[in-house]
């Protein structure tokens, strides 16, 4: 028995060590670290979020989601929001900060109903959605890396009825969210230590979806002159720099704005800068990386909708404070979300 235990322990020891290292320094817990750490398999001490939590204004949740609202009792709202994950963020998202200001009533379209928010909004407009639901403003949000692509191949004839939406909501509620389990047998125990070593030599090692590059200044509370951003921010720069495609996007938004105007609704467009774009000027070795031009081109175009120039607004804010975006996440922090909410309110009044 002793021989068996000794040999088995010796055999399993290196594997258990790797498992332990991975468990201690790498987490998939969303409350302890952002998505860029998980996507990049990056070791982290997990203290960043605790450090910056105190900066954020905590407000009660005051927005409503379409999947949870009873339209028979409640169908008139000041604002409707539709977008991607930047329109999420629960109580720390811009929509909730907006809903807490000046007793504004806000309805949010759930993410699963609006994979492409631009097309989804067109479909709702063509259907009976706005016959039943009365809103004064719509905030159409899209992250920079996807915004141009979302305006390609738009169908102006597609429509979505409220009946279809109800059906999707029911299906979604039945789909039980599987508890994400850490798989014990995972390539992470090799990949994670290996990738962290490779980060010492490369900005984006094999199999990582996160870039980690040096910056001239320190933009985050954790005092690191590093910037983490999602690989897709860089992949889509060429597409987003294409003036013709940006023009197409603006045309689509203008047309949509007119359609909504006939229904008495004002469109507010909120493109959210990619983290790569936002911090580009602070990158140490800019010669390695293509300059994003989306906002420069988009800003100059004539618009018939209300435009929130979130990049400019947040650049001004960044002169006063750090952590406009989370260090470890693709998304902006509640500081940015609150500021954006203030700007939206200004444009509504």
């Amino acid at each position, binding site marked *: *028995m002793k*021989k*068996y235990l000794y040999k*088995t322990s010796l*055999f399993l020891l290196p*594997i258990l060590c790797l498992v332990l290292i991975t468990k201690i320094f790498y987490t998939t817990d969303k409350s302890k670290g952002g998505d860029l750490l998980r996507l990049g398999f990056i070791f982290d001490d997990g203290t960043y979020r605790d450090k910056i939590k105190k900066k954020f204004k905590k407000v009660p949740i005051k927005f409503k989601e379409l999947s949870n609202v009873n339209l028979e009792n409640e169908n008139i709202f000041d604002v409707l929001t539709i977008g991607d994950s930047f329109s999420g963020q629960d109580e720390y998202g811009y929509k909730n900060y907006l809903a807490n200001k000046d007793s504004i009533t806000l309805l949010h379209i759930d993410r699963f109903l609006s994979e492409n928010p631009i097309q989804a909004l067109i479909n709702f407009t063509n259907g009976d959605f706005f016959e039943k639901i009365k809103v004064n403003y719509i905030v159409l949000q899209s992250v920079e890396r996807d915004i141009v692509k979302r305006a390609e191949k738009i169908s102006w004839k597609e429509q979505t009825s409220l009946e279809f939406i109800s059906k999707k909501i029911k299906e979604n509620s039945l789909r039980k969210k599987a508890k994400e*389990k*850490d*798989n*014990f*047998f*995972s*390539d992470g*125990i*090799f990949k994670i230590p290996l990738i962290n070593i490779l980060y010492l030599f490369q900005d984006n090692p094999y199999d990582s979806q996160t870039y980690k590059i040096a910056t001239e200044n320190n933009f985050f509370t954790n005092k690191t002159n590093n910037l983490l951003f999602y690989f897709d921010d860089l992949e889509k720069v060429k597409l987003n720099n294409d003036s013709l495609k940006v023009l197409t996007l603006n045309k689509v938004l203008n047309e949509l704005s007119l359609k909504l105007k006939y229904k008495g609704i004002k469109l507010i467009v909120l493109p959210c800068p990619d983290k790569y774009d936002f911090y580009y000027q602070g990158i140490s070795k800019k010669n390695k990386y293509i300059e994003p031009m989306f906002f420069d081109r988009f800003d100059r175009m004539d618009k018939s909708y209300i435009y929130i120039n979130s990049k400019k607004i947040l650049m001004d804010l960044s002169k006063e404070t750090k952590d406009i975006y989370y260090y470890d996440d693709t998304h902006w922090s509640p500081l940015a979300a609150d500021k954006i909410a203030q700007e939206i309110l200004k444009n509504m009044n």
Partner: protein
Amino acid sequence: MLFNSIDFVIFLPIVFMLYWFVVDKSIKLQNLLIVLASYVFYGWWDWRFLSLIVFSTLVDYSIGRALNTEKTVAKRKALLCASLLVNLGLLGFFKYYNFFLDNFITVFTFFGAAIKPNTLNIILPVGISFYTFQTLSYTIDVYRGKLKPTKDFIAFSAFVSFFPQLVAGPIERATHLLPQFYKKRIFNYSNAVNGMRQILWGLFKKIVIADNCAQYANIIFNNSEDYSGSTLVLGAILFTFQIYGDFSGYSDIAIGTSRLFGFDLKQNFNFPYFSRDIAEFWRRWHISLSTWFRDYLYIPLGGSRGGIWMKVRNTFAIFIISGFWHGANWTFIVWGLLNAVYFLPLLLTNNNRNNLETVAQGKYLPSVKEFFMMFLTFGLTVFAWIFFRAENISHALQYASGIFSKSLLSIPEIFPNFLIVLIIIFVLIEWRGREGQYAIEDLGKKWKKTFRYSMYYAIVVLIFWFGGKEQQFIYFQF
């Protein structure tokens, strides 16, 4: 609790240490630990269903004791019927209630009657198809006088709930497993090492082969209308390896784990894809279930004795019921039916017991004839698996008809190179080890320690490297 989960990785050493260091002096305490550990293992999934296994244990223990004292034939029959009723009743309710109700409604609706369905939201308790059959084997063998009923309730509970094989087999016979609970288990080094090797190979089959095949098989089956015939063939082959890797992998882990505790379980898969005909396949695939049906259903029905029609009837009955055991869906019944159609010609021409020894025994390669026979049998099996995997009959027919189209000769749209290479290596290792209990049973035993341990590490690295999304064991749903 899944074998490939972190929960089990923590659970097993704790139980192992308690078993061999704390309660090793007493058989009763060892058995009690097995019972408690097994209930924790089972209850980890859903504690509410522990009541079913406890109920089944109590009923069959009591019936066993009653059969010991009852001499009247009619009363003995009644006791046996009670056991059958309880066990099959539980199985029938949890597994088949909604199936029968839905089909009942379909038939009546067809004839114009409007019936309001009252389907229930029934959760299928994990392992119910396995442990009910295991306890039934006890009462039937006691009834037949093949086994003395036990007075030791703890030993019996341990036999029913033995965690390595509780949720997905092998279905052990009471005559084989129960006596092992009466004897003191003494730690045996080579047995434990053998157990670890078998667990390692089982994990390899499940995680590297089955889970990776599943990813592609699922894509192809779930979108079968969009793929060419050749891709559909690939999907069917990948599912064939998925189900083998999954199920035989689980059995290997179960048998290996049992060895760690001093128990010997019967081999459940004997390299079935190297079979030369369907009869041989069914002697090698899910052996514990097919022998259960043979001994408790086929032979009592008359088996192969009697005229042609009796043989035909019994063959169809066994395969259809076996198919139905797998799930409440017409696809499983059709799968069983298809296997019956494959098997019947062999039975009727007395060729069902031709290939009893391992193919190419003692040789490196099969003969051309053997290779051709294996290829044909494999092809028939792959085709039948389409029905097993499909969502419903129309999906299966759509899938099958999609194969036999012009696009059968095109290059598959999906071709996972790395997986194909892995499968080829896997088949070669299985072929090499086909005369053993499991493929790597004697692999490396004569090598130097360095090489042998390097082989173990290579397998471990592959298991972790290819460990992707944790996939449920397929047979958990049965």
